[in-house]
């Protein structure tokens, strides 16, 4: 992990009409770290991720990604620049198989046109084999060989989440945004998922930013944690620092009046 930020946000504010979702928040994500964003319900965590990958455009503030500063970025531009994400509610193609879903993650890296791909001939064929290989490595990595050809709609929720992670990894992202990757999972599934996130971070050097409610998991996984409450940043630091911060304790446990 280096000190160099991969992405930094300066004084970002986002409002929907009169509702302020994010107010004047600044923080950065360093190359190679696992960064957690936590906070009570409605704190603006998912909005924050949406700002990062260009789905929402903040009214104020700047986003610097890989040294380039901009205020507006479209989601497909974010994807092309190596930002991948998973969603709070699984967003997969339910009728397609695990393998095909993961293959869609390669879409941006396929260069041959639709015509060549449809013909599956010559360079397009070579390209597909190349991409299939990457996908198979991810399938092996996530230990989902047994469901390779199963339509994802038939899979239990925990596995769908894993497939979604697989699709994000297939983009070979520089920055991986995970929105509640462990929501609704049992303890064993959470442990598996944590293992895969840490392994992806170590083996592929993927920088990870994740939102998670399970504080135990967050403290175990992340290098640094940023805490939001009502759209404002109330703490930022290592898990131990954050745990000891009186503002955080007050936000989570309430304060004595």
């Amino acid at each position, binding site marked *: 992990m280096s000190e160099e930020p991969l992405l930094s946000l300066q004084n970002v504010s986002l409002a929907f009409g009169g509702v302020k979702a994010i107010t004047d928040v600044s923080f950065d994500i360093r190359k190679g770290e696992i960064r957690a964003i936590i906070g009570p319900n409605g704190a603006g965590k998912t909005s924050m991720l949406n700002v990062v990958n260009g789905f929402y455009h903040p009214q104020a503030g700047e986003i610097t990604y890989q040294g380039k500063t901009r205020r507006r970025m479209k989601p497909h531009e974010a994807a092309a620049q190596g930002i991948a994400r998973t969603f709070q509610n699984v967003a997969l193609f339910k009728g397609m198989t695990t*393998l095909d879903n993961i293959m869609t993650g390669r879409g941006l890296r396929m260069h041959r046109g639709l015509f060549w791909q449809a013909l599956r001939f010559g360079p397009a064929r070579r390209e597909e084999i190349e991409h299939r*290989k990457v996908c*198979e490595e991810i*399938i092996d990595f996530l*230990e989902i*060989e*047994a469901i390779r*050809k199963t339509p994802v709609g038939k899979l239990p929720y925990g596995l769908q989440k894993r497939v979604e992670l697989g699709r994000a990894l297939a983009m070979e992202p520089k920055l991986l945004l995970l929105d509640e990757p462990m929501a609704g999972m049992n303890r064993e599934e959470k442990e598996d998922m944590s293992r895969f996130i840490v*392994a992806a971070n*170590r083996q592929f050097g993927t920088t990870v930013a994740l939102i998670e409610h399970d504080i135990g998991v967050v403290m175990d996984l992340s290098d640094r944690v940023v805490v939001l409450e009502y759209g404002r940043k109330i703490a930022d630091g290592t898990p131990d620092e954050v745990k000891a911060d009186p503002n955080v304790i007050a936000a989570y446990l309430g304060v004595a009046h």
Partner: protein
Amino acid sequence: MDAARASANSDDTFAKLMRLNAWVRGERPAFRLKEFGIWRTWTWNEAYRETRALAQGFADLGLERGDRMAVAGANRPKLYWSICAAQMLGAIPVPLYADSVAEEIAAVLEVAGAKLIVVQDQEQVDKMLTILPTLRSVERVLYEEPRGMEDYDDPRLAALDDVIASGRARVAEAKLSQAMDARIDEGRGSDPSVILFTSGTTGRSKGVVLSGERCIAAARDTVAFDNLTDRDEVLAYLPLAWVGDHYLNYAQGFVAGFCMACPESAATAAEDLREIGPTYHFAPPRVFEQLLTRVTIRMADASAFKRWLFQHFMSVARRWGETIVNRQPVPILARLHYMLGSLLIFEPLKNTLGFSRIRVAYTAGEAIGADLFAFYRSLGLNLKQLYGQTEAFLYVTAQADGAVRSDTVGPPAPNVVLRLAADGEVQFKSPGQFVDYFGEPEKTAETMTPDGFVRTGDAGVIEPDGQLKILDRAKDVGRLSNGQLFAPKYIENKLKFFANIREAVALGDKHDFVAVLINIELVAVGAWAERNGVSYASYQELAGRPEVAELVKRHVEAVNKALSQEPAMAGAQIRRFLILPKELDADDGELTRTQKVRRRFIAERYAPMVEGLFSGAAEASISAEITFEDGRKGRLEGRALIHEPQTFGLAPMPRARVAA
């Protein structure tokens, strides 16, 4: 190549056999492995080269003749080659059950004293690292899959691929290559070839030492028996440490020269089976049962027309399939009808199950239900039964093509001598017979009879057609007070083949007659109750319903009818039974963790009910304080009516004790 030497002395060890295969059928496929979604194939030539490289690598790590080398993991070509590489050096491979916990492995390694351990992955490495401090013999642990191993720095760990690479470079030198040839030639057929540890379900596990020449002799007999050739193919999915894998895949594969395909993972085995389409296959009855359940469930969801089609042709199959599989004459119209069924139902179904190309399939290990067995046979699958054990290098008996029954395990396999002791125990002498238990001469002596037969510990009878029928563990077989042979498990199994009966406990040793405690299967009987408007709120209530008793009684009577047709068993028909008011449960100590009934324990806990059965009372009740395994105390309360099913061809029940 030196053909004279090859023919004179090339087939009494597995190392020589592998070399022979590389010479004779070098370009034929020997091993396959599905990796990254693709089947990768190694020919006998390639496998032989890799194995030599591994052997050189092991030798460089200090593995010598007579040393032991443990192997733990799933079925992977490199693990099979490791086994053969150790054998090349005259070292003795000890395959371990991959899913054993660390303590079990420690106990085995303590006895085996392994110098090297070859494991598949990080999971196994972790297990080994926890037990290494207590094992002084182990010098190195080699792992096949490097994944997740980056942060390990124990100096005893090394990647198997590195060992192969360094061995490959070294064995390329002419001098070392010749030395390797010499090592292979030095191996004698009488040397220990492998140590297979028994699974330990009937006591502590013992290391069964098998010699190369005996293993190969046994495999040769059965390869000829089933006409296996190098065009055959198997899916190697059974545990490495189990004799079945070492026999059916490794030994027979080396002798016949066929290809062993290794599945991608245990979870994908069913899918891989379909893709490979093996021609020779083994599965325990449990697996066949699960497959049938899956088919049944899917058919229940199918459209009415498909269901009708399936049922129609399955009835044709039941009527004629067996006769056709056995190549007996069949009326031409029936044959055409069956052929149509093949086209529409049987072949597509077999294809779905991965059974399309199977010529020979075996099942063994436990009793298989007649209906289940007939289902697969009638589809045209040549499913047969065998009986064996580790000490025999698997085969003791095996059914020949065309002489197959569901309730027997076949006549003695080629060159096996079989006999029954006075107490009914099956004893044998076989070509593959074990040498001894590793490091336990007193155990060896206990197992051998003075005249050199091996005691199996199983009780059986030999049927008029010469086929062996296994009844039960010999120590569980008893006699009724009139001297009638009483095999509880045999009777229990017959009852349990009915879907409505989940467990049965047969009692009768030293009693006047056989009585049975029965557990109904809540799911099956519950569904039946729903269909028939029988209401119930709990297991206990359902078990007490007279309609349910009537249903179970019909099953018991069917069992009695079947027993009455067997001369050895006719006197052991069930006279009285009751349905237990509580489900037997492993958590309460009533079943073992592998779901076998603990008969003696149950007889004690339910003593008042057992007394009721044998005293002639019309009902029995129980009310007792019991302590569960975890120390909790609870009350066991309930009552049950006692029922008297019809018996066939027996004198009326002795009524002397009905005084109560």
